């Protein structure tokens, strides 16, 4: 009797092994994300840091709008126009996307009921899955002539076009995240407020939105991150010409689009090649900061709840 009890205590049965194997697999899955990020960071750093240390003038990089890496006599690497291009397009995109996505999220989360709600959710998710090249195509072939006609400008590929396209692209994802934030507000808050005689809008505005505030901020930040990182649609819709934009009708060039368009034409290891990687490091740093901010804001929610 005692011996068999001790045996059970000692024996590793199949559940024990399955548990160990599953733990190991899940661990590999989890750690691989971190390894990939580290790998990417090491790779772009290796290609770009030599350039940052030896060739580039940091002051020129951030303050000069002259991006002439292919000049024979005097190549210059001023990224200011590219940064301005990305920032202006992303800024306009947020002006378009924030009201639309928050409005849509509030409608889906707080006002729509039953079938309407389900259909809308599916449609928004479908919108989020449209490939960016399709959005770029819309910018190029539909928005372009419309902008030329409507505003009587010579070129329709500009900040306005890219901003609107990027805004429409980012809105579905922001809607989904914002709606998740609203869904995380417990229903008994809504019930309690409605039982007091609050109208649905009063409930939304006075109770649900303050409670979901952090999640909504995170949704907007992730939208900004998406805007900075988007390449293909911006490349196709922005006009891709180096320019410090004075108005929304100026063509611009984005950081991402520059890398995408030029990397294929540079000799590996050349100054130009390394300069593009420097842009990459810069982009990586920006998106990292934005995502980190979004994450910290989201953490804030969990602590308060």
């Amino acid at each position, binding site marked *: 009797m005692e011996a068999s009890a001790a045996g059970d205590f000692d024996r590793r049965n199949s559940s024990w092994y399955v548990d160990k194997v599953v733990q190991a697999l899940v661990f590999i899955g989890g750690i691989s994300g971190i390894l990939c990020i580290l790998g990417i960071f090491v790779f772009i750093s290796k290609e770009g840091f030599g350039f940052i240390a030896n060739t580039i003038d940091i002051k020129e990089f951030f303050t000069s709008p002259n991006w002439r890496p292919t000049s024979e006599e005097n190549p210059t690497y001023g990224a200011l126009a590219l940064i301005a291009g990305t920032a202006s397009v992303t800024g306009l995109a947020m002006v378009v996307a924030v009201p639309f996505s928050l409005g849509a999220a509030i409608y889906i989360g707080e006002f729509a009921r*039953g079938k309407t709600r389900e259909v809308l959710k599916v449609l928004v998710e479908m919108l989020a899955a449209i490939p960016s090249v399709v959005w770029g195509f819309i910018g190029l072939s539909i928005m372009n002539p419309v902008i030329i006609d409507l505003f009587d400008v010579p070129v329709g590929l500009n900040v306005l076009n890219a901003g609107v396209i990027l805004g429409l692209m980012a809105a579905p994802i922001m809607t989904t995240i914002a709606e998740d934030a609203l869904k995380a*507000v417990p229903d*008994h*808050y809504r*019930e*309690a*407020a*409605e*039982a*007091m*005689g*609050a*109208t649905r809008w*009063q409930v939304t505005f*006075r*109770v649900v939105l*303050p*409670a979901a505030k952090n999640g909504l901020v995170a949704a907007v930040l992730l939208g900004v991150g998406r805007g900075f990182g988007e390449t293909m649609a911006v490349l196709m819709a922005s006009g891709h010409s180096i320019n410090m934009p004075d108005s929304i009708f100026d063509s611009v060039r984005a950081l991402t689009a520059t890398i995408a368009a030029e990397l294929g034409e540079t000799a590996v290891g050349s100054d130009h090649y390394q300069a593009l990687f420097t842009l990459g490091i810069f982009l990586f740093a920006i998106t990292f900061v934005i995502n980190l901010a979004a994450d910290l804001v989201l953490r804030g929610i969990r602590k*308060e709840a």
Partner: protein
Amino acid sequence: MVTDEGRTAVDGSTRDGAEVKLSVRDLSISYGDKTVLSGVSFDVEEHEIFGIIGPANSGKTSFLRALNRMDDFIPEMQVEGEVLFNGMEVRRWRNVYALRRRIGVVFPLPVGLPLSIYDNVALSPQLSGIKDKTVLDETVERCLRRAALWDEVKDRLDSLGSLLSGGQQQRLTIARALSQEPELLLLDEFSIAVDPVTTMRIEDVLKELKQEMTIILVTNLVQQARRLADRTAFFLSGELVEVAATEDLFTGQVQDARSRDYVEGRFG
């Protein structure tokens, strides 16, 4: 008293000259094909505390939901029969929000809204359009005092209401319901998360509030019904067994033996 048709008759034990505040006629509530309340009828008078007792699943909470039309949130909840508030069928109130503002509700589990303590209590007056800071301040203090919470929170009215302890949140919920200055106050197991000493303090407040409003008290504590209620209804498995003056119910002068068994704790 259940009649042959399965309908419950109105008990005659009302006080003389009292106005009827709420009248329930042949009220049935079901969720899908599951009936939780069938054919209930009785009157609640102005300025009385009307107790409702009964074991779990006897339809007490669903009954309260039907009164201020909280059934609108639950698509599968069907309400039949009549609920007359001030003589008017609640489902005919075109402005359901105005109806709900006159009926305060305290839920069994405390719901401190994720707002400051001050805003929790000031929300309802603000929603009905009061902006004057001195009026709001005064309302907040009065309601918190009545709910026996003022002394504990007066120095931190700006902190989040949802971070208070369970018992404090429940008193905050009571303060919030009072801030509506309701004509009818529905209390659903208000003392479930409150300590006995505080419960007694709130009970004293309720006895005073009776001068200003009508109170329906759903409780699992039969002794609480005995302490507070003028009349008490006994619900059992979705039926109204009887409505009686509370003293009669607790001294054995009942029409149905099940009522006596229940209040004496000999049920099952």
